[in-house]
């Protein structure tokens, strides 16, 4: 009897497992005018899109046209950043196909390849290309090297190697790139300021960034975002004004929207999040914030959103994509209330990237799972670096006697 029951249970489990890949029944829409898909937000005018398509077609016919390939790859990367759609990274890669797998591609291609890899969270591959561009005797033009240095600093910062990142930005601010003017000097200074803000000098950094903003003129949305994030870490209310300023563009990018949504969620202003993110739920990161807001609003839409997110995470896992750790940890923690699963994701994510948001989700998951010792790596980094964050200081810290 027992064996029969266990066999039955096993086959039921197998049936369920097999069914994760099951497909629903297809359907035929009622009429020709029925809208079957809303295309993602599109960039540019009808005419510009037509030209883009033509350019892609020209490249498809003759793939080895480097200038055209670089142009299309840059455009695709810009769209990827704005829309957060990884398909655009694929298009960038497709444009560079003839050079993509070369050991030693032209420097401009190598730079873009590193950028795509970085965006896909393949930090090791990105760093290897960037290091090659920057090594002594590299044939890369100085402008390409400047970009490579900045991208490299960004990767190092994200992965928690702040001393190396600082060295890179110091080189960038130095005489070698002086001829390139503010186009390089401003990001180099902003990079140094941000890194110092993480290492116990938040107040000076804030002043420095304010000066840079005045110097930079109108085109400084990116700098405004850096300032907003710093203000949030410092627990400064100017964060709201800065976030809103950074969002003053026709098509705000996914990152800025997500950052401001988080700021609002921290303050219990979930109704505003629902308004802010309306119609942007095609991006997973925004759908996550929207679902959290709906849930806190006791809104049934939360369940639908959570189910969609779960399906997308499953699909990502199926294709072997593990870059969702931060989002998945928050999904488990805040939507499903599964602290143990959240902690697993947060720890795996912390092994790869160490931004303040990564630290926050690890500490919160560890606390919820009643395993405060799991957050020790965050406290150690904070002690060693002098990094301060108002959000983390609000979290009860565990006894630090062990260290």
């Amino acid at each position, binding site marked *: 009897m027992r064996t029969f029951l266990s066999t039955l249970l096993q086959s039921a489990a197998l049936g369920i497992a097999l069914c994760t*890949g099951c497909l629903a029944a*297809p359907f035929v829409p009622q009429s020709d*005018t029925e809208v*079957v898909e809303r295309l993602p937000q599109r960039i540019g005018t009808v005419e510009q899109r037509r030209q883009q398509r033509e350019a892609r077609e020209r490249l498809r016919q003759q793939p080895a046209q480097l200038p055209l390939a670089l142009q299309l790859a840059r455009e695709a990367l810009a769209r990827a950043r704005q829309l957060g759609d*990884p*398909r655009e990274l694929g298009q960038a890669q*497709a444009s560079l196909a003839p050079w993509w797998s070369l050991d030693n591609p032209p420097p401009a291609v190598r730079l873009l390849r590193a950028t795509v890899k970085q*965006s896909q969270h393949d930090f090791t591959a990105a760093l290897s290309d960037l290091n090659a561009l920057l090594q002594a005797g590299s044939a890369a033009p100085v*402008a390409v090297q400047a970009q490579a240095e900045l991208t490299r600093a960004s990767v190092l910062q994200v992965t928690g190697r702040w001393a190396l990142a600082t060295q890179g930005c110091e080189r960038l601010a130095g005489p070698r790139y002086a001829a390139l003017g503010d186009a390089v000097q401003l990001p180099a200074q902003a990079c140094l300021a941000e890194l110092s803000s993480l290492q116990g000098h938040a107040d000076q950094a804030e002043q420095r960034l304010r000066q840079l903003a005045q110097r930079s003129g109108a085109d400084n949305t990116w700098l405004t975002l850096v300032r907003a994030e710093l203000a949030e870490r410092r627990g400064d209310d100017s964060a709201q004004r800065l976030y809103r300023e950074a969002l003053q563009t026709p098509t705000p990018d996914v990152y800025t929207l997500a950052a401001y949504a988080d700021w609002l969620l921290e303050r219990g202003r979930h109704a505003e999040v629902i308004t802010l993110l309306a119609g942007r739920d095609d991006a*997973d990161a925004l759908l996550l914030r929207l679902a959290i807001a709906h849930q806190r609003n006791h809104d049934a839409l939360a369940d639908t959103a959570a189910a969609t997110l779960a399906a997308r995470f499953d699909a990502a896992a199926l294709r072997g994509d593990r870059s969702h750790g931060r989002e998945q940890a928050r999904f488990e923690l805040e939507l499903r209330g599964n602290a143990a699963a959240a902690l697993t994701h947060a720890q795996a994510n912390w092994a790869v990237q160490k931004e303040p948001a990564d630290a926050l989700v690890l500490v919160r998951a560890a606390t919820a799972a009643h395993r405060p010792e799991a957050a020790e790596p965050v406290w150690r980094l904070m002690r060693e670096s002098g990094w301060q964050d108002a959000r983390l200081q609000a979290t009860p810290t565990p006894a630090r006697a062990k260290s």
Partner: protein
Amino acid sequence: MNTLLRSAFLACVLLPLLAQAHKPSDAYLQLQVQGSHIEQRFDIALRDLERDLALDANDNGQLEWGEVHTRWNDIAQTAQQGLSLTADGQACTPGPLGSPQLDEHSDGRYAVLMRRWACPADIRQLDVGYTLFAQTDPTHRGIAHVQHGAQSDTAVLVPTAASHRFEVAAGDGPPTGFAGFVLEGMHHILIGTDHILFLLALLLPAVLVRTKRNGWQAAPQLRPVLLDVLRVVTAFTVAHSITLALAAFDVVNPPSRWVESIIAASVVLAALNNLYPVICEGRWKLTFVFGLVHGFGFASALKDIGLTKAGLALPLFGFNLGVELGQLAIVAIFFAVVWTLRDTRLYRGAGLRAGSVAITLLALGWLVERAFDIKLPLIS
């Protein structure tokens, strides 16, 4: 230079490290392997198709169903160029495409392309060549589920990479080996109550002889009885083998409702013939005629296992052999019993009559069910 550089810089300054904000491009490929053919269901995101094919004819940022289904040929071509199936080193050929349909996935609507592929022989190793969107999005992946029998394998297919091999080993699920088909044939005759009852109705009186004066009497000698049984069984075998082969090779394909109804009628007639004998000598001729219809019935069972014309000969032979073996076993046991009982009054009276009446009534029920496509209580 400066503006260009700046825009390039903006691209990278503190690059947002928001993990893959969207679901990346996936397509879902489901392949169901049945013998030598494959049922395909291929779900491709409309958004991906829009990029390659510019489906949004009026460029309003929305795809209407008209914009999609009028371009279905292009969609089908894209899908077909992106997928090739090879079974044991030989290319399979795609059959006609099903009608345009859509389905909803977690990130939007997908075009659903269904078709059947025919491969030269029973599939043991299936190589799936996948190049969908290789030109336009190398980060695209195909999530493939290959089902064979009760098993299913999953793989993530990378466009441009070498083809992915699935082992669709013989022996699991529907039979693929010769022995499997023999077993399947035996199974079919043993559970096929209508075929068995037809044979039994014919064999019930085999151990008796009928005379005008005394009615049914026990047969005195074994030899003529055995010869009679042999003739009946052989007639049945030869007849159903002929039609089984004809139907399996798609030479004749009578509608199954007719076939099933006539099979039921044949059982009724065989049993009635015991009660009101019309044909006594040469029952094998009756058996042959109805055996032809039973063969069509076996064929539908063989097709249910998922066999088509290609590479059919051996499985057909195996299946038929199984049917004969099962049939022989039934006849042997039944004959031994009735031979022993033939001299009893019970058998000549109740056995033959009551048995034949029961068979007649049951088969009449089937006949009504099958001919009028209704379900009667108490039967089956």
